[in-house]
C-alpha cells in the first residue's frame, strides 16, 4: 500500500503536467541533457582535450560539425563533455542547498519560538550578502575547482529554500490534521516527517527545479570569471570566457556554449512553471 501511495502522488502530478505540452518538452530536454552528461564519452566524436594547431579556429567540417576552438579542439565534443560540469553544478549544489534548507525551514517553522527567531536572524545576516557575491567569494577563498564551485553555489542558496520551507511549514502547522496527529500520540519527529514535510514541500519543488537552472547559470558565471571549473576540463562558461579572445573574428565560438546554457536553464524554468501549475491546488479544485 505504501507503494501505491507514492505512485499515486507522482501519478497525480504527472497527470496534471502531461497536459502542459511545453513542460513535457522541457522535461524531455532535461532528461536528454542528463543522459548526454552520463554517456558523454560515447557520444563525443573526439576527446575533449585533444589539440590540433592546424585546425585552430577552423570552421565547421564533416569531421568537426561545429568547428574547432583557438587551440584546435573539437567544439562539439567539448560542448558534450561540458554538459557534465553544468549538470553537476546545477543538480548537486541544489541538492545540498535544498536538504539543508528543508531541515532548517521545517525545524524553525514547526517549533517556532526562539529556535525560529534565532535561525531567521542568522538567515538575515546570511541573506544580506548578495548571493552571487557570496558564491564568488567562497569559490575564490576555497580555491577554484568544480567541487568548490558546487559547495559555494550550494551554500550561497540555502537561505532561499529555508525561507520558502519555513513559510510553507507555518501554513501547514496551523492545519487541524497536525493537531489530530498530536491527539493520537504521534511524536514530533513523525509529525515533521509524515505530516509537515510531505505537505509543505510543494512550493519547494518548483523552487528546486528553477534552482537547478539558476545554479547552472551561476556556475557558468563562476567558470567564466575563472573561479569555477578549471581548464582543460570543458565547461560552457569557461568556453565562453576562452572564446572572448577570438570574439571579433569567430563569434560563433561563444555562441554555442551560451546557447547550451540557455537551453538547459530554459528547460528548468519551463518545467518549474509547469510544475507550479500542476501543483497549484486552486487549479486542481
Amino acid at each position, binding site marked *: 500500500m505504501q507503494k501505491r501511495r507514492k505512485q499515486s502522488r507522482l501519478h497525480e502530478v504527472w497527470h496534471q503536467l502531461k497536459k502542459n505540452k511545453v513542460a513535457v518538452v522541457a522535461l524531455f530536454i532535461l532528461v536528454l541533457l542528463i543522459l548526454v552528461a552520463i554517456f558523454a564519452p560515447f557520444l563525443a566524436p573526439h576527446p575533449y582535450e585533444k589539440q590540433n594547431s592546424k585546425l585552430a579556429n577552423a570552421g565547421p567540417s564533416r569531421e568537426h560539425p561545429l568547428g574547432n576552438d583557438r587551440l584546435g579542439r573539437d567544439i562539439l565534443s567539448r560542448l558534450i563533455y561540458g554538459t557534465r560540469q553544468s549538470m553537476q553544478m546545477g543538480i548537486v549544489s541544489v541538492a545540498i542547498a535544498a536538504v539543508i534548507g528543508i531541515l532548517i525551514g521545517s525545524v524553525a517553522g514547526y517549533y517556532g519560538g526562539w529556535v525560529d527567531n534565532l535561525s531567521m536572524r542568522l538567515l538575515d545576516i546570511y541573506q*544580506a550578502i548578495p548571493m552571487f557575491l557570496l558564491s564568488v567569494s567562497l569559490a575564490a577563498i576555497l580555491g577554484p575547482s568544480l567541487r568548490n564551485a558546487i559547495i559555494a553555489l550550494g551554500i550561497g542558496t540555502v537561505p532561499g529554500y529555508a525561507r520558502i520551507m519555513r513559510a510553507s511549514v507555518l501554513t501547514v502547522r496551523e492545519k487541524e490534521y497536525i493537531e489530530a496527529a498530536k491527539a493520537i500520540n504521534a511524536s514530533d519527529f513523525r509529525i515533521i516527517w509524515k505530516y509537515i514535510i510531505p505537505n509543505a514541500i510543494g512550493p519547494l519543488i518548483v523552487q528546486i527545479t528553477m534552482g537547478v537552472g539558476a545554479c547552472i547559470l551561476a556556475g557558468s558565471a563562476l567558470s567564466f*570569471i*575563472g573561479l569555477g571549473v578549471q581548464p582543460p576540463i570543458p565547461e560552457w562558461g569557461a568556453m*565562453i570566457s576562452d572564446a572572448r579572445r577570438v*570574439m*571579433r573574428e569567430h563569434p560563433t565560438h561563444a555562441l554555442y*556554449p*551560451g546557447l547550451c546554457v540557455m537551453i538547459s*536553464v530554459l528547460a528548468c524554468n519551463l518545467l518549474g512553471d509547469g510544475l507550479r501549475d500542476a501543483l497549484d491546488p486552486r487549479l486542481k479544485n
Partner: protein
Amino acid sequence: MVRFVIKRLLMLIPVLLGISLVVLILIDVTPGDPARMMLGAQATQEQVNALREELGLNDPLPVRYGRFIWQLLHGDLGTSLMTKRPVATEMWERFPYTLTLVVLGTTLSVLIGIPIGIYAAVHQRTWKDNTAIFLALISVSMPSFWFALLLIRFFGVYLGWLPVSGVDDWKGWVLPSVAMALGLTALIARQMRSDMLEVLRQDFITTARAKGLSERRVVYRHALKNAMIPVIMVIGGIFGVMLGGSLITEVIYSIPGLGQYIMTALYNRDYPVIQSGILVVSGMFAVIILIVDVIFALVDPRIRSQYTRKEKRKAGRQLAKETKTVETT
C-alpha cells in the same frame, strides 16, 4: 513611521556585525597564508612571520574582530595589500560607478518589466500573453555575461554605435545597463504578471466590478495597487542580484567600480579589500532593503497602521468634522 525607520536601522547593526564576523571566520579557516601570498614563494619564513606580525594575523580571532570593528567605527577599512592605499579611499572613488550602474539597471528593468507584466496579465491566455511570457523566460534563462558579450559584438563591433568598454560618456553606460537589466526585467515582468493574476482572482475585485466600475479602473486602480506590494519586495531583492551581477559586468565593460575592485582583490587574495568589500556591498544592499521596507510600509495600510494608528484616527475625526460643517451650512 519615524519609529519604524529607527527600529529598522537598529536592526541593521547586528546584521552588519554578523556579516563582518562571518567573513573574518571564512578567511580564517581557508587554507593559505595571506602573508605568504603577498610576499611570494621566494620569501623566507622569517619575512613571512614579520609580515604576519605587522598585519596582526597572529592575534586570536576575537582580538582581530574587535580591532576590525574599532577601525570600522573610525572609518578605517584597512589598507590594501596590493596597492598599499587605504581601502576606504579606494572604495569611495569607485562607489559612484557601481551605484550608477545598479540604479540604471534597476530603473530600466522596473520601467520595462512592470508594464510588460501588467500587459501579459490583462491578456491572460492569449497569444500576447504567451509571447511576452516566453520572451521573458528566454531572457531569464540567458547568462548575462554571454548576453553582454553578444551586445558588444553586435552594437560595439558590428554596428559600431556604442563603445565596447569604458564609461567615459553616457554612451558607455548603455550596454552595461542593458546587459544587467535584461534578465531582471524579465523577472519583474513574470512576478508582476503572477501577482496581478493572483489579485484579479480575489473577491474584492468582484466587488469592484459589481460596483459598476470600468474594467480599466478595476485593473489599474484596485488590482494594480495591490499587486505592486509584493513586486516592491522583489525589486528590493533585485538590487541584490544587480550588486552581485556588477562583479562580472564591471569586469567585462572595464568599469572601475566596486565589483571590479572586489574581483581583483579576490584573484589576488587581498584580504582587507575582500573583507571590507563584502561588508560595504552588503551594507549597501541592507540600506536598499530598508528603503524598500519603508516604501512597503507606506503603501500597505495594514503595516502602516501598526505604527501610525493614532494619526489615522485623528485624520478621520478631522474629516468627519469637515463633513459635518458642510452639512450645517
